[in-house]
């Protein structure tokens, strides 16, 4: 079958098999392996540590219940990440306002400069509106394509592009406001 050919290591295969049989130690091992990365992603999308923990919990319960449906179309980590992103996005969906790029007339140049401070950048990202922030995090940090983001968030690729555009514009403005550049 197409899409079932993603190579996974023998160790990971065993972990999946054990999780499938409900082996609690294997489930904990899987959780420990991905918890930090997924929790950080949850936080970056929700901008709330408590909500991020709720999302992480809900997402991993979904992972363990649905692990039989893992088709090896991607790596296990990528599959888990998709579940985490969808769960996180469901939580903030109401707050998200999507804007269209059509209103924008002038092309613009954004210069990120030579020095960017991680602390200020984190602060600036977290101050973005939820829609901009989610798309920015998924594309620029997590490396998803506009098409993938559009599918996960149920929006068009055009909307995804416009969200990223506005996110970057606002980010630069905020960084200037913070006195970074």
């Amino acid at each position, binding site marked *: 079958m197409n899409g079932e050919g993603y190579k996974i290591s023998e160790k990971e295969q065993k972990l999946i098999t054990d999780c499938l049989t*409900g082996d609690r130690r294997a*489930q904990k091992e899987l959780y420990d392996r991905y918890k930090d990365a997924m*929790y950080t992603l949850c936080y970056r999308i929700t901008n709330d540590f408590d909500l991020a923990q709720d999302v*992480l919990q809900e997402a*991993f319960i979904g992972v*363990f*219940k649905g692990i039989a*449906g893992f088709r090896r179309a991607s790596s296990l980590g990528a599959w888990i990440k998709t579940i985490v992103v969808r769960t996180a996005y469901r939580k903030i969906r109401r707050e998200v306002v999507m804007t269209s790029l059509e209103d924008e007339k002038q092309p613009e140049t*954004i210069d990120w400069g030579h020095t960017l401070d991680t602390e200020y*950048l984190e602060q600036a990202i977290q101050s973005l509106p939820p829609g901009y922030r989610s798309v920015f995090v998924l594309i620029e940090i997590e490396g998803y394509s506009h098409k993938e983001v559009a599918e996960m968030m149920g929006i068009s690729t055009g909307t995804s592009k416009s969200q990223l555009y506005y996110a970057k514009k606002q980010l630069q403005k905020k960084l200037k406001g913070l006195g970074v550049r």
Partner: protein
Amino acid sequence: MMEEKNQSNLRETLQKLPVYTPDDRVWNRIEQSLSHEQNKPQAIIRRFSPFTFNRVQWVAVISALLLITAGSLWLYRPQAVVPQSPTTFSEKELDPALPLSKAEITEYEHQLAEQEKELRTCIEKLPDQESEQIKPAMDMLKSITTMRDSMIRLLDEQGGNPGTEKRLQSLEKKRKELIRELRKKACGIQE
């Protein structure tokens, strides 16, 4: 469209952003929820774990084991005179928990394969809506079968391992149960 300068600088800084660790209580809550789910009776997919046995079930299991042990000791005691009886063949289904010798696998597999074939024929005859309802369970059956095949391959390549064999038996049991439930639902066969 928008142009960007020094984009690599942004990328590098983004890679250095801090990573956070969730509270340990998150795992505890996940574990609680999974245990709660396991205890719920499910229509098609039932989970089996000896850790969920209650006291009465444990007593029943231990009593059965004691009876089997006592019976075996009596039957195979030195110079035992076992009454002769004509050879008969059991029509019972093979127990998946039996040791997996090749001959047993073949016969057991044949029986399950026949049941699975029958199940697929039944599903093909079902109306679209009903066959859609059964699809997730069929997907799960497919995954379990794939896992089972991988484990058998692993056992063949690396030799016997009590842990893997135990897991294999557990998977096999789930597979058999799933086929049985699906046949019940799709073909109306009660066993």
